[in-house]
């Protein structure tokens, strides 16, 4: 099994919490978004407090994502740096190769719905490019999309085409206006709302930017060929002595981040 943690730390120094998270989850890979602490400082802390095996996989640009890995067999080197907000990593699981695409979508406060839809079109072009150029279909999209699973660009055929259940993606693709679009599976649908074991989303906001209260901005989305390797995804609210949740059960923006981290498990076959 291989375990990846993703966390948008909102430009705060959460090194202690990151180390606790790495330790309590025994994650193989830690991906931090908006980490203002230098990669080498975080690495130093991870090595001294969690495991000396942590390293920084080769990268082209580390502006948006800091990636730390403790299993060299997984590789995780960056093989494509997108125009704005993506980083594609080679991810080896056993004798299978996947592409882990890290994503940070434009935020709601500074970009309107049209700009964010335009970002998804741009993203789809980038995904098509990496799939064709690297000749690998197995894409795992992970990050802060700044969109919910139910937002139109996430599930339009010409958008990310990300469906609610595994069985929705079983056909592999659907046809729209004479063109075939390959399915993605979005397991985050299963974590929305009250009837789940964890919180109802990863972000809580009741201002005009968060009309539903909870949002599921932090997501993992899988190309249909990756579904058999996917095991589980979970929203994390605490690690060791660190709680990421305030007294109301929302992300503790004051002492941690306004995003909860997510943890994704894959299994070798």
């Amino acid at each position, binding site marked *: 099994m291989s375990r990846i943690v993703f966390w948008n730390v909102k430009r705060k120094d959460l090194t202690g919490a990151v180390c606790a998270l790495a330790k309590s989850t025994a994650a193989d890979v830690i991906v931090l978004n908006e980490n203002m602490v230098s990669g080498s400082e975080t690495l130093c802390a991870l090595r001294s407090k969690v495991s000396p095996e942590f390293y920084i996989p080769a990268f082209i640009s580390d502006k948006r994502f800091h990636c730390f890995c403790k299993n060299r067999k997984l*590789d995780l080197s960056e093989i*494509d740096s997108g125009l704005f907000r993506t980083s594609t990593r080679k991810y*080896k699981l056993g*004798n299978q*190769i996947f592409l882990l695409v890290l994503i940070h979508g434009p935020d709601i406060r500074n*970009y309107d719905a049209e700009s964010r839809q335009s970002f998804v079109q741009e993203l789809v072009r*980038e995904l098509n490019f990496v799939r064709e150029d690297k000749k690998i279909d197995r894409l795992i999209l992970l990050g802060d999309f700044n969109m919910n699973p139910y937002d139109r660009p996430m599930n339009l055929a010409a958008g990310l085409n990300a469906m609610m259940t595994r069985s929705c993606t079983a056909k592999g693709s659907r046809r729209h206006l004479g063109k075939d679009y390959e399915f993605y599976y979005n397991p985050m649908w299963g974590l929305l709302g009250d009837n789940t074991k964890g919180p109802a989303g990863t972000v809580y906001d009741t201002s005009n930017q968060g009309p539903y209260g909870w949002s599921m901005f932090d997501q993992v989305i899988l190309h249909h060929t990756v579904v058999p390797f996917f095991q589980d995804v979970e929203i994390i609210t605490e690690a060791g002595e660190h709680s990421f949740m305030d007294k109301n059960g929302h992300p503790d923006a004051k002492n941690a981040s306004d995003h909860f981290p997510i943890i994704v498990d894959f299994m070798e076959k």
Partner: protein
Amino acid sequence: MSIFWPEGLSVSDVRSPYEILENAQEEWETASDGVLTLVLQESEDDKSIVITVHAKHLPSNRTATLLSVIHRLNEPYPVTIRPRDENIPNFLKKSYQVSWTSAGSAAAKVVAELEAINNPMSIKESQKLITNKWVSDTPSEFREKLTKAFNLSEVKAAVLNLTSSKGTLVDDDNEAQE
């Protein structure tokens, strides 16, 4: 010297943005001794053509997207460039230009400016002129702006990082997807 002939226009220079990018591609291969090339990815929707330009380090097969070029279907000009890392909010752009054509209270201007930043479609209503420095009307202007886009520090950094890996490089292999 002609005073009525449109400035910057030459009937002998009618190359499309794609053809100009192909010239850039050849130049990159020559200048890098075959280590780097440009990959031109063309896609279209119902209104426009988008040419995304990726730099490719051939020995490692690693890529970085450098810029994209957008024009209307069947009309190569005017054409605009979206440089690397240009996708930042207007209020963070050093060169974002706002020119007022009508008088109004200071408060109304602030409100209209915020509205224009959050909703570019409102620009017309608030009577403001936003200049897009990356739009070209002619091939010669496009060449000039493309040169500037390739010379941005973001592009240079991406190319240097492509050719010299930072972090820890795990030995490359040629494993194919199984």
